């Protein structure tokens, strides 16, 4: 049973492990305000708000795509949908602003947009902050509208605070207690056993030990954190999962801890189940280039659910974070029944969607080093659309200029091979060299030898080759541009 609150009312509903929140809402509960536009987390029509209480019982909301969120992850949460916002005839400010700004035309994307505005409104209520273009893009970039062209939606976001605050913000109240036997069951890893019928095996361990035990017991059950990739198998490929292991509540995978490695490097262990949204403040402070990339990774709905561990484990050649982590010399902490081990990230990706993960092993955490005081990181993502698009090509470059020569040059690319990969030969062409045209010409030539990208829906092989080489030219200009104010890239893409 899934025990949760829907728009303030406790609910207890049975569902197969591979049910999505959207299916639960529309098919089981008859709540059709939330729409399906794509069933792949790309359009935002199904956006809902998920409320999670902190230790003090204070509710925190994030937006999510209901179409690819496992319904069982609602366990113990507040689910707010578009039907729940109005107080009788009094609209929520997000709704009222959409009406007065003429923000809906066909209206199909509107419920999702209202819910994204709702989470923005909640964030503004908790901590008012200027609604910069970047902030609005971050809040609304995951909601496609085909009718309006977005201007009236932008106006609605900017003016919703002028509408009266909701009289009954019931969603801010602590969750009413639910059926305790069932909530206890959530916390008890031992409840699901070999005798649990398939179809009821949505496993939610809360400790690493329990996670590893489930892994051994149900080897066919996939791991899920945010579901932002895995659930496409369900909605697009019609894959059925009798059992699913949810890592999102495993304590050890949810922490961000400072650490010192054996080699003396200092940094953080980022739990594999830490979402992009939770990681963002740390990156904002220490790695602005990486933080900027996160703004272009998926949408708010995706960043609220997707995790660093998931991005690495699925080993896609066009994952956004692996090249950056490669350029930063990140390491992994892998945990298995036989214990834990560390592994350099560049030893992890073996081939297309093939990793060094052993049977029953999970990624526990990712080591992100502290930034080097004189080190630089550039992250450049190329895609057809700036927001919410998958990379055609991504270059992540680490370098340091020391007495006029380049040091610790690490050039990593996504979209150029079957895996995210360092360009070792091009790196060698630059390491220890002055940043001259000649050195970079050699590096660009090396790049062409090192990579044979493919042509696909996101770009041709020729374009990828050319653009990758040009990113090195951009890097040269950045490295040498200390004496000129000339822009070498567009503001909208820069950080």
């Amino acid at each position: 049973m899934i025990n949760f609150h829907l728009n303030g009312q406790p609910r207890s509903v049975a569902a197969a492990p591979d049910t999505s929140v959207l299916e639960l809402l529309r098919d089981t509960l008859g709540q059709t305000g939330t729409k399906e536009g794509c069933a792949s987390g790309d359009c935002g029509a199904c956006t809902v708000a998920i409320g999670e209480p902190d230790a003090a019982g204070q509710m925190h909301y994030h937006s999510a795509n209901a179409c690819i969120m496992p319904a069982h992850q609602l366990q113990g949460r507040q689910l707010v949908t578009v039907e729940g916002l109005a107080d009788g005839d009094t609209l929520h400010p997000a709704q009222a602003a959409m009406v007065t700004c003429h923000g809906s035309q066909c209206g199909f994307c509107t419920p999702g947009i209202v819910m994204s505005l709702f989470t923005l409104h909640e964030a503004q209520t908790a901590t008012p902050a200027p609604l910069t273009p970047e902030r609005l893009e971050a809040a609304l970039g995951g909601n496609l509208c085909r009718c309006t062209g977005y201007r009236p939606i932008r106006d609605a976001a900017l003016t919703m605070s002028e509408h009266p605050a909701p009289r009954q913000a019931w969603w801010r109240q602590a969750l009413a207690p639910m059926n305790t036997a069932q909530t206890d069951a959530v916390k008890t890893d031992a409840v699901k056993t070999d005798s649990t019928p398939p179809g009821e095996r949505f496993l939610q361990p809360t400790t690493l030990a329990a996670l590893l035990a489930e892994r051994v017991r149900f080897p066919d059950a996939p791991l899920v954190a945010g579901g932002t990739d895995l659930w496409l198998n369900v909605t697009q490929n019609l894959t059925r999962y009798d059992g699913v292991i949810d890592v999102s509540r495993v304590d050890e995978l949810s922490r961000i801890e400072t650490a010192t490695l054996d080699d003396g490097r200092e940094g953080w262990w980022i739990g594999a189940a830490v979402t992009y949204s939770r990681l963002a403040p740390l990156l904002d402070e220490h790695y602005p280039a990486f933080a900027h990339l996160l703004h272009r990774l998926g949408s708010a709905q995706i960043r609220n659910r997707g995790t660093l561990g998931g991005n690495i484990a699925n080993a896609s050649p066009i994952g956004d974070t692996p090249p950056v982590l490669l350029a930063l010399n990140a390491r992994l902490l892998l945990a298995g029944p036989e214990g834990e081990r560390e592994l350099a990230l560049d030893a992890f990706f073996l081939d297309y969607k093939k990793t060094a993960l052993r049977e029953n092993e999970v990624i526990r955490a990712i080591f992100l080093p502290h930034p080097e005081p004189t080190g630089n990181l550039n992250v450049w993502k190329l895609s057809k659309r700036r927001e919410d698009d998958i990379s055609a090509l991504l270059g992540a470059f680490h370098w340091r200029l020391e007495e006029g020569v380049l040091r610790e040059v690490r050039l990593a690319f996504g979209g150029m091979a079957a895996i995210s990969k360092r360009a070792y030969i091009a790196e060698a062409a630059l390491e220890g060299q002055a940043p001259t045209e000649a050195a970079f010409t050699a590096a660009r030539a090396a790049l062409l030898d090192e990579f044979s990208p493919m042509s696909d829906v996101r770009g041709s092989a020729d374009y990828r080759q050319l653009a990758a080489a040009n990113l090195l030219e951009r890097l040269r200009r950045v490295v040498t541009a200390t004496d000129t104010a000339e822009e070498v890239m567009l503001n909208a893409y820069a950080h």
Partner: protein
Amino acid sequence: MRTLTKLNPLDPEAASDVGDDSAAAREEQAGRIKGDGPLARDTVEAPPHRHVHQHAQAHESAVKHVTGRAAYIDDLKAPADTLHIALGLSPVAHGRLTHLDLARIRALPGVVDAVGLDDVPGHTDIGPVFPGDPIFVEEEISYAGQVLFAVAAESYRAAREAVKAAFDANMITVDVELPSLDAVAAAERGEFVRPTHVQQRGDWEKALSDAAHVIEGEQFVGGQEHFYLEGQACLVTPTEDEGVVVHTSNQHPSETQKLVAEVLGIALHAVTVEVRRMGGGFGGKETQASPWACIAALFCRRTGRAARVRLPRSEDMRATGKRHPFHNRYRLGVDQNGIIQGGEITVIGDCGYSPDLSDAIVDRAMFHSDNAYSLGAARVTGHRARTHTASNTAFRGFGGPQGMMAIEAAMDDIARHLGEDPLTVRKRNFYRKDHQTTRRDITHYGQPVDQTGLLHTLVEQLEASSDYWARREEIAAFNAQSSVIKKGLALTPVKFGISFTAKHLNQAGALLHVYTDGSVMINHGGTEMGQGLHTKITQVVARELGLDVNVVRISATRTDKVPNTSPTAASSGADLNGQAARDASVKLKARLFDFAADHFFPGQGADSDDMRLEAGYLIAGYGESEQRIPWGELVQAAYFGRVSLSEKGFYATPLIHYDRSVGQGNPFYYYAFGAAVSEVSVDTLSGEYQVTRVDILHDVGDSLNPAIDIGQVEGGFIQGMGWLTSEELKWNDAGQLLSTGPATYKIPTFGDLPPVFNVALMEGHPNSMASIYRSKAVGEPPFMLAISVWSALRDALASLAGYREAPRLDTPATPERVLLAAEALRAQETT
């Protein structure tokens, strides 16, 4: 105070734009409407309610949209035993269906029924205008995504799983043949879905040979997926006789009614089609919504159970047609000032596998290959190439945008060739009043362009408000000192012909009911897809009856309320249905006045000229003798007086004609105009770019609802920008579509909204023709304003070659295409 009929002081230029044709139209309509001439009279007036509060009325469903109460097809409650349908789509682009084992498919878990072509009792060809669209494949497979069979099951998931299982277990086998995917090659081989059409005026060959310069070019203009947020969907329920009720997301209910009846082999009166609203249409639900209704109706009649279809996004994108990709060529002779003397333009529309609406679409591309410019002595040829892709179909602009791309490319080319600013060249080539032999006010298909003064005035206003020339200088200075980032600027105009070019479609009906409590129901033939048509129609009726808009309601578009309707397309929804609704209102009003004269004012000699409906009252007389009867009282009295409170209305657009045998005529009732200035910044190392500022001035005549019209202008522009920039349809060599969802097909999103976006409606220029309250159609014309973005990209790229050359830039101009164009220019400069 009496509201007198008086012309608002018009701009003299605009007043002179009221042409002879307009006067003729007024006469023609005046005679047709009872009461002699209220339409003709009122439509030349500035609308009396122009600035009242309700003018910018919110969308009639706005509150329902934002609360989730607005119901779309898949939200409709259906009987518990409703069947769910999934489609078996061809995995190959060309081939033969060699084996389809429906018996085994019917035995799959959860499956209730499965059907193929042999199970259709009536017609099997559901081509909308011309034959060529089989409901299921008989033998030859013509595109990847074509429907081979359909399954009805107890659940949506079971239906989809059954289709997957049927393919996995080889219950369907196909032989693969080589697909034809290149429209240009197909045209060269003479593989057409419809015959080639030619429009010609003057001696184009002589114009070319006498010209000072000849400008030649070619371009590929990509297609576009509609990406309506609500995919194709319908719910069909059985009636107690042989028929069905079809709830569908659909721009053309009457056609679906006809096709469902034909497929079932029953009369049209047994089929009722209802459309409350669509979650977006854009042309993608004009013909493409019918097949699913036909298939669901088939299951419904076979099983006696309700049946519903909704296409998963990837299937929707594979199965349905898109905007036609075009290949355009132009060869134009210009004088030393860059003014076109004549030449030829050839457009090849990639129609996909069947005619669908392609004849009219390629025609419209031809009609708009001049855009706002006189082509002089020109020949325009339009080919309709057949390829093995989904049958391309209507999409906002209906071929017009693709046609305009040719001449807008040529304008840039001419400017570079002469070293002039592209805007200067554009303005020199505008249609202008010209009664000499060259007649630069007549199109290549023989229609005089009314309101040329408006075009010039509009562009001048925009030029000034956008600060075009100062920014041009700033950009030149910026580009001179910036080696990587290059800025570009362009102003492009739009002249778009309004009317269906299929003349018979230019008609509309409406049905008006007044109930005894005074509430009003209006039904009409148009469908609501977000464009605000129902809002505008309720405003028309409310205004005619002097009521608050909230008193007037539209239930849904239903074929049993208003029959034999045209599709809601060609931007004509408000033009046609607004007039029909007004016609009904005016007739009813006249009847009420006649009744009131006898009933309320007997012996006072009151006639309808002394009466008016305003603010919820019937008001008779003036000044001291004024008398007011509340609307509710009037309606009650009329009911007891046995006066009919129901009326139907009708409208047919006057004057239009086109003789296809000679390619000449006046196919359009009028033209809508607009212009946009776009500025872009391009990173010439990566191909990334940003649209940094857009200024738009657009002509909607006297707006029926400025909020809705601005919404159409902005939304159309952004959609057009998506078409020309990020929206890329990709197929593999086997003809399978690769861009089958929002992950791979990128429509504009929030961040693509230009940071500076100044959009205004042209004021003070009512439609010169007698249209509904002198408004103009607005659905499609703004779409083409986005050509300015593409032209600005070309402008930025041209800076790499000293503005001596306009680089070829096929569309969509993705970062990849922009980068490759930049590299080509740079390579050329260094050699």
